[in-house]
Every structure is written in C-alpha cells, then in structure tokens.
C-alpha cells in the first residue's frame, strides 16, 4: 500500500469514528462568507490616498506623479539621491522609455549582478489600499528577484490598479492564478531580538513606490 493510500485510509477511518462535528458545534453553518463593502463607491484618488497613508505607516515611501515621464523623473531623482550606480530593472514595459536613456540599467540581471546592484526597479500589477500592499504577479513581472535582493526596491504602480481590500484583490487574482504572487507591505523587517524592530534584515531596506495617477 502506498503512503498516499494509507494516509487517505487513515483519515477516512478516523473521520468515521468521530461523532458528527456538527452535533457538538450546533451553531456550525456552511462556510459563512463575509460581505465586504463594495469598491464601486470609492474613487481611485481616495484609494491612492489611503494606500499612501497605510504604506507610509509601515515604513514605505510614496511619491505621486501624473504620467510615465514624471514617474521616470522621480525614479532617476531617487537613484541620484541614494547614489545608485548599478541598477537592475525588471521586464516592465517602462524600461523601453526614452526617459531612461543615459542611465545604465541592468536588464535580465544574473544572480551575481543582482547581489551587487544598489537598487531594483519593478512594477506592481495590483495593490491593496486598506493595508498599503503591493501585489506582483509573476505572469507579468517575471523577475521575482529584482524586487527582493537589492537593498532598495523602487516600484511603479498605476493608481487605477489599487483595490480596497484583500478580498477584492483575491477575487481578481482567482480567475487566473499566477505561478507566483507576491504581496509586499513595507520594507523587510524583524522583531526577533527583544521584539525590537529592525528594518532590512533579508529583503530591501527601503521600499519606494512611485504612483502614476
């Protein structure tokens, strides 16, 4: 008998031994589903404001722009401010933009390059306003490591893609689930030593989000 067969048989025989769970927990209802407030009556500006407030509260930095050119200006400004010399960029469409000309961006970085760069630039495909969370889908953002390995992560997000809640985002993702979906809420953190907060333990020390309205 294979381990699979044996384990399933064990589960079935133990379930059969038990008195009905429902008899003991009489108030059991078939999966209560929570009703979340609808997104329709919240404007994308309000959602962007809420997103920025929540992300700032957990140590992220948020800058607003009204088009791609402005966004790239903000990115180059940030790269200058942190003195970034080597920068990795994910396969986002923005990387073809003329405004990036003159900056030496590493496309499709190798592992060695990734560990040596000063910053990584990616996009986020969705976001959650309630928690200030970025959502990266591997079907559209195939470079999982650009947002993770470099000490600074710069992420570009269209405000139109900000949803109110986790429920709304999961609903949207569930129609076609990517091989990897990454939720990011602020920079990497730990409280493992005396519950004292330390930033940037394994992932980026800084998370900078450039919003495009």
């Amino acid at each position, binding site marked *: 008998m294979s*381990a699979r067969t*044996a*384990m*399933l048989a*064990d*589960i*079935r025989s*133990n*379930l059969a*031994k*038990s*008195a009905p*769970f429902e008899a*003991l*927990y009489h108030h059991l*209802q*078939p*999966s*209560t*589903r*929570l009703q*979340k407030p609808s997104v329709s009556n919240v404007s994308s500006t309000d959602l962007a404001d809420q997103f920025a407030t929540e992300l700032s509260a*957990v140590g992220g930095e948020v800058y607003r722009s009204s088009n791609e050119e402005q966004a790239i200006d903000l990115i180059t400004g940030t790269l200058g401010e942190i003195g970034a010399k080597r920068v990795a960029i994910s396969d986002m469409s923005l990387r073809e933009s003329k405004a990036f000309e003159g900056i030496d961006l590493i496309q499709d970085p190798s*592992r060695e390059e990734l*560990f040596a760069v000063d910053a990584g630039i990616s996009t986020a495909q969705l976001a959650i306003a*309630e*928690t200030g969370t970025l959502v990266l889908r591997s*079907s559209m953002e*195939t470079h*999982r*490591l650009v947002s*993770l*390995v470099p000490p600074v992560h710069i992420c570009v997000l269209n405000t139109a893609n900000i949803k109110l809640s*986790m429920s709304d985002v*999961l609903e949207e993702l*569930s129609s076609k*689930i*990517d*091989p*990897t*979906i*990454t*939720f*990011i*809420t602020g*920079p*990497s*953190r*730990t*409280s*493992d*030593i*005396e*519950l*004292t907060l*330390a930033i*940037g*333990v*394994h*992932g980026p020390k800084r998370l900078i989000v450039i919003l495009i309205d």
Partner: protein
Amino acid sequence: MQAQTAENFDKNARAAIDDPVLQGALQNLATTFGTRRKAAIATVPDWEASRESARSIKAEVLGQLDEYLVAFADNAEANGARIHWARDAKEACSIVIALVKERGVEMVVKSKSMLTEEIHLNAALEAEGIEPVETDLGEWIIQLAGETPSHIVVPAIHKTKAQIAELFAEKVGTDREAGVDELTATARRILRQKFAEATVGISGVNFGIAESGSILILENEGNVRLTTSLPKTHIAVMGIEKLLPRFTDLAVFLELLPRSGTGQRLTAYQSIITGTKKTESNEGPDELHIVLVDNGRSKMLAHPVTRQSLACIRCGACLNACPVYQSVGGHAYGAVYPGPIGAVITPQLEGLAKAKQLPYASSLCGACREVCPVKIDIPELLLHLRAEITEGTANGVAADEKVGRGVGERLAFKLYGSFWKTPGRYRFLLKIARATQRLVVRDGKVGSVSGLLASVAPPLGAWTAWRDAPAVAPESFRELWKRELKNGGNSQ
C-alpha cells in the same frame, strides 16, 4: 535548557519562574504583543464574524479532509508540483533527505517552519552530512546557540540582546557591544552568502488551497522569498491540516493570522506559489516538491473535541495571552509546541504517557479561547485530555497507553461524592474533620500537609502544597441557626 522534557513540566516551570532574565523577556512579550494585537483587531469591522467564518471554513475542510487533500494534490501536480506523502516524521525526513541527496548538495537554506521542528528535520539532515542553514533571524540565533524555539512566532524570545551579542561575538566574530541593527546586518551579510550558494531551499506552508493546489507562506524578513525563489529546487513541508477549500478563503485568514500573531495588519510579505514557473524567462525554482505530513494528525480527527486541534493556524496568540506561558516561557513545556495549544497538541502527537503533565499546565481561565482566531476551545480540549488521562477512552488518544491516575484517585473521588451527596454522611464527615483537623490547621487555615500525613497519603501533599483552605468552623451555620432558635433567637 536542552534537557527539559514534557515529563518534568513541574520542575521546569519552577526553574523558569526563578530565572529573572526569562521573566523580563516574557513580560515584554505579553505587553508588546498583547497591546499590538488589541489595536490591530480594532481595525476589523466585525472581528467575531471573521473568527466564526474562519472556524467554519476549517471545520468544513477537516470534515472532508480526504477529499480536499486529493483535490489539493491533483491540482498542485497539474500545475507542475510534485506531491509526496509522509505518514510520520521518519518518512517525511527520508523523503526530504532523498530529494537533497539526488541533487548532490551538502547545504540547504531553510525558512522557519514549526513542522520541520516537529519532525526534527535538521538533526536528520545533519546525520546524513547535509548542513541545514536556518535563515529566519530568530531561528538562526537559536541554531547558533544549539537551542530549540521557545515560541511559535518569535523563537528566540527567551534570549536578551546582550546574550545574542555575546553569542554572535563567539560564533561569527561581531563586537560584544553590538546593537540590534548591527546584529541584524551581520545576519544579513552571512546568510546572503548562503543564499547565493544554495541550490535547495526548504520551507514550511501556512495555507494550502485545495481548488488551485497553491501554497501560501507569510513572513516579515524576506528569507522565505529568498528560500523559495533563489534555489533551483524548493521543498515545502506541509501538515495535512493546512488546507483551505477556496483561493478566496485566504482573505479571512490573512485578516486573522497577522493580527493575532504579531499585531500587524499584514506581515511584510506573503508568497502564493502555484506549481512551477511556466516559462523559461521566469525567475524562480525549476522544481517544487510538497511533502504532505500526517505524523499523528489524522488520529485527531476521530473525536469532535480533539479535531479542533487541527484548526490551529500557529499564530501564537494563546501563548501570549496565557498566564502560565507568561510565567514559565516555552522551554518548560519540554516540547516543540509550547503554551496552551502545545499543551493540547503535544500529548496527542507524542502520547499522553510522555506529556501527561501538560493538560494540567493551565488554570482553565479561558484567555486562550478568547484570543484564538479560529475559536478553538482549548479549555475544553484540556479537560477532554485530563479525562482521558484518568479514565481512558475507547477511541481516544490514550487508547493504547497505560496512563491514568489509576484506581486510587477514582476511588477517592467516589468516596468524596458519596459523602457529599447525603446530608447525614456529610455532617458525620464534618464531625470527623473537626476532631482531626488540628493536625493540619495553622492560623485558621488548612496549610500544606507535611510530615507523617503526607507520607502516608502522598496525593494530599501534592494537593495542599499550593492551596489553602479555611479550617472547618467549630460550629456550622445550620448548627448555629438551630441553637439560636432554641434560645428564642434574641441572643444577638
């Protein structure tokens, strides 16, 4: 601390209470996490409805666990993952070791996983010449120290910054005066070299989704993302109880878990992994192996009370809220899972005989039940296990074991019952008590039974060592009442 076992909970607990360093750390834990949790759950519109929803989703999964497991395995494999089935710890370790050996590596990076602690995977890997490197900061600290986790969420909570600085100075050569930021930076630097080399990464799983074959892992540090995206091979070790039916069920659990665990609205990262990458250009592992582990879990399905244990999402809230855990810390429990949930899981996983003190390591105050995000009735479970210890049950945890306080205790309580049920016998007993109590009464109280009496009746000594009872009054209220009536009721 290593020698502590569940059999000696009483002795371990006493030592822990006398340890001022540990007491400071535990106080910090209770206030910090307790306060943060309260603030975080206040941001949820209807916390009680969320708990009820989570509880009922878990009940649904556990009631048809066989079907949900098959669905999960089929869907994960359809997406490119390989599923392995492990009946017990030994089988799970063998599967992981074989996978690592086939890939010809001598070092693996690991992210934090209570299940790998439970099956003692690190020791098994080391015995085969494979170096497991824990990458969660807290886990790495205790690995350097050669200790075990004392908390489900913050494994090194029992150590002070000074102790950790001392440890790092000795093991990795940092300054003895190093602060938290410097210690953290050192861990980052050293572990990055390991990440850069590693070709196999081992992780745990927080939730598995039956309908899609996805797994979700939560974290704050980024080491889970590194472990699951840098190496060519990702091995995820998962308890069979971790399943949720639907992808969208994650919403309520992601609302409950971080708030209950660390008091965060959401941890810094969640990774949802569904099979392997679909195109060559994608970064990430080529292979995903999911090891499904039973190791005593299916046995818990056999009774509706014990089945609740499998709903646990390992948030640690019951530890932080428990007056016993707050006083003795995690190591006193002498087991992988400490605190109230540990006191119910350990006896079921390791056998009542080994851990029969643990169901009594509780005042049954109910704080654990109140904070549990999935509404596990831990006091009910503790009482259920206590009953099994004294009575034994046909299908229960104790079915094949010789535990129990035996005939003596049962007889004593039968006798006690028979005297308390009949007024005549009760009054007779009071008379005897009045006549003999001067042997044990000091300052109007029945103090600890010691000396001769304790040596002829040892359970009495154990019972009275920590409990005072008022002495039996020279005259009962009923006797007083009768006497006063006779006197015409006007003496006072």
